[in-house]
């Protein structure tokens, strides 16, 4: 297996600001066919008051990474190696009990599907107040008062009456607000938001993003935003980690990575966004589709879709290396990415997809 050790990155890791540091995280899924590594050597840092985006397409391992950090992996999945330091304490070596004590109040998480994340048989007040009752030993009355306060903070109108409503009585956007309220109830140091707006309409998405921004600065939290939407990353995040087939292929500040991508995948993604392209013009697209996780080729993970591919890409997996100020990429030819066309226009047939 190929791993890479992240050397402490001087530029990206100013101590004191760091809330979460993930190093060489590996996650395995046990399948009947054998163990599949779905996250491989992922490392990043999330800092106070800033947003780090984990960006990638479905199946790239971004959600798995977040679940591993939050200790919410499915029973078939397990952390196979690496560390996740929350305020300097390694979550991966903790006992379940320690974890609850540290991660319970220190880490909040917001899921994509707000309806299934809420229990339909309890009122919103009960569910919001639960955290206070468990971690702060609050009384029923106090918990309810705290719940109302939270609802006000996340912008739910008439919290005094709505505190007694049930989840189904709220709209999708309101439910997402409630989930966010639950996640920030105990003023966590780190908020993980897993595709928080994917199920929502554009106008509501804008509201939720506004709310997350507001809470981030109020609470001075670090936010890890998991998304597949490049535009959302461009607008909301400070740093970005681009993931492909379980690996981080490029990371750095959003501004530099998006302006001058040094990995062909990042560049291909950026070119695929329709943007302002005019009707009739061919859209750029990346040929093919991502490899299955149990069939990841040796060498570079992106070799099958990459126009820059050479023999070295098949033989040797590129390590993340600095490619610019506050920017690192895992590509043998990172320096060439800027000059080359990495996507193609026009119709791609499946033959080409399968090359």
């Amino acid at each position, binding site marked *: 297996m190929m791993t890479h050790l992240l050397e402490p990155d001087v530029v990206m890791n100013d101590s004191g600001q760091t809330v979460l540091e993930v190093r060489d995280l590996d996650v395995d899924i046990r399948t009947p066919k054998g163990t599949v590594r779905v996250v491989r050597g992922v490392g990043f840092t999330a800092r106070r008051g800033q947003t780090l985006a984990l960006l990638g397409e479905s199946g790239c391992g971004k959600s798995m990474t977040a679940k591993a950090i939050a200790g919410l992996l499915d029973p078939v999945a397990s952390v196979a190696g690496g560390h996740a330091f929350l305020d300097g304490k390694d979550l991966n070596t903790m006992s379940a009990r320690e974890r609850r004590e540290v991660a319970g109040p220190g880490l909040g998480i917001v899921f994509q599907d707000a309806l299934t994340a809420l229990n339909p048989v309890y009122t919103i007040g009960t569910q919001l107040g639960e955290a206070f009752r468990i971690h702060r030993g609050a009384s029923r009355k106090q918990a309810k008062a705290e719940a109302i306060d939270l609802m006000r903070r996340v912008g739910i109108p008439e919290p005094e009456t709505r505190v007694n409503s049930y989840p189904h009585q709220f709209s999708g956007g309101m439910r997402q607000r409630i989930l966010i309220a639950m996640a920030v109830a105990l003023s966590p140091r780190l908020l993980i938001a897993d595709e928080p707006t994917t199920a929502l309409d554009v106008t509501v998405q804008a509201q939720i993003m506004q709310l997350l921004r507001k809470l981030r600065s109020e609470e001075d939290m670090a936010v890890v935003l998991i998304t597949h939407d490049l535009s959302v990353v461009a607008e909301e995040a400070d740093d970005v980690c681009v993931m492909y087939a379980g690996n981080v292929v490029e990371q750095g500040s959003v501004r530099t990575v998006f302006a001058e991508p040094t990995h062909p995948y990042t560049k291909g993604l950026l070119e695929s966004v329709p943007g*302002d392209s005019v009707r009739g013009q061919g859209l750029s697209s990346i040929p093919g589709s991502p490899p299955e996780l149990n069939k990841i080729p040796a060498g570079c993970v992106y070799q099958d879709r990459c126009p820059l591919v050479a023999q070295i890409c098949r033989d040797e997996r590129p390590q993340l290396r600095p490619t610019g100020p506050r920017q690192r990429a895992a590509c043998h030819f990172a320096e060439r990415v800027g000059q080359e066309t990495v996507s193609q226009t026009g119709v791609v047939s499946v033959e080409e997809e399968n090359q």
Partner: protein
Amino acid sequence: MNTQETGAEPGNVLEVKDLTKTFHVSAGAAGTRELRALDGINLTVRKGETLGLVGESGCGKSTLARTLMMLEQPDAGTVRFEGQDPFGLRGRELLKWRRRVQMVFQDPFASLNARMSAGQIISEPFATHKDLYKGAAAKARRLNELLELVGMRSSDAAKSPQEFSGGQRQRIGIARALALDPDLIILDEPVSALDLSVQAQVLNLLNDLQRELGVSYIFISHDLSVVRHVTDRVAVMYLGRIIETGTTRDVFDHPLHPYTASLMSASPKLDPAKRPAQRIVLQGELPSPLDPPSGCRFRTRCWKAQAICRTERPAAQTREEAGLVSLGMPDAGPPQFPHQTECHFPIASAAEAGLVPAGN
């Protein structure tokens, strides 16, 4: 309803007038309540063009698609397909009409029967339209032709849908819609379930097919950047009504309705230079269609709403009629498709629409 040919404008494939559809929703002990999913829809699709249908979930765009596909019966209004009313057709005539309008569905997983092979799925329409391709050889030939058209191999026909990725499955869905050689395809969010890199492939395929086959599309989507890329004209829906319509360029560059403007303004932009300096973030969410606001339906979320918006439903007016033509906006759309909106106080400038980039 009559089936006689009415005076259809030449070049128009589809003409919809005042289409209304009401659902009866059970409301517990109170009996049923009316949900007006479509409230007087007017639209036209010309031959070989793409009409975009934009709106948030619950605005009625999927109901409109289902009604046009005759999966739902409208309460009122007319649908004319090259002058013919499909709802008046029976038997063979109806079957013949079915060939001309087809649909591609949003979810490439749910819309293909997992128990059939790709080939069976694509040639399923032939089982209903038995007289179209006579004999196994003709059917096989057509199947290969279709597979080639959507960029797949003939050996793919034997595989089951599980063996394909999302983008390839959507190609199968498109091939199935093309099987009967239709004149109009309704694309219901055809790429919103796909990953970005694959999405572009499918959009390019759709564009190429249109050029090659001259088929018309109704493209339903909530993704504005996609709509801008593939459509000739756009209709924006809100709570069962089309509140703004015009050529894609007109609507995107100079939105007239505050709702359209807020949609454009709220959607995140990749390029920092294009981000609006002043973003419009609407308050609240879509009101319940069971209890729509009086007058203008958008007034509860509109920052320009005044007393008249509560009492009077705005009539459709063009930019010229609204007195906004003097602002020097270039090329109003072709005369038969004016840029019009249903609003008492249409947006006058790009600045008001929240579309002036921060860079300027």
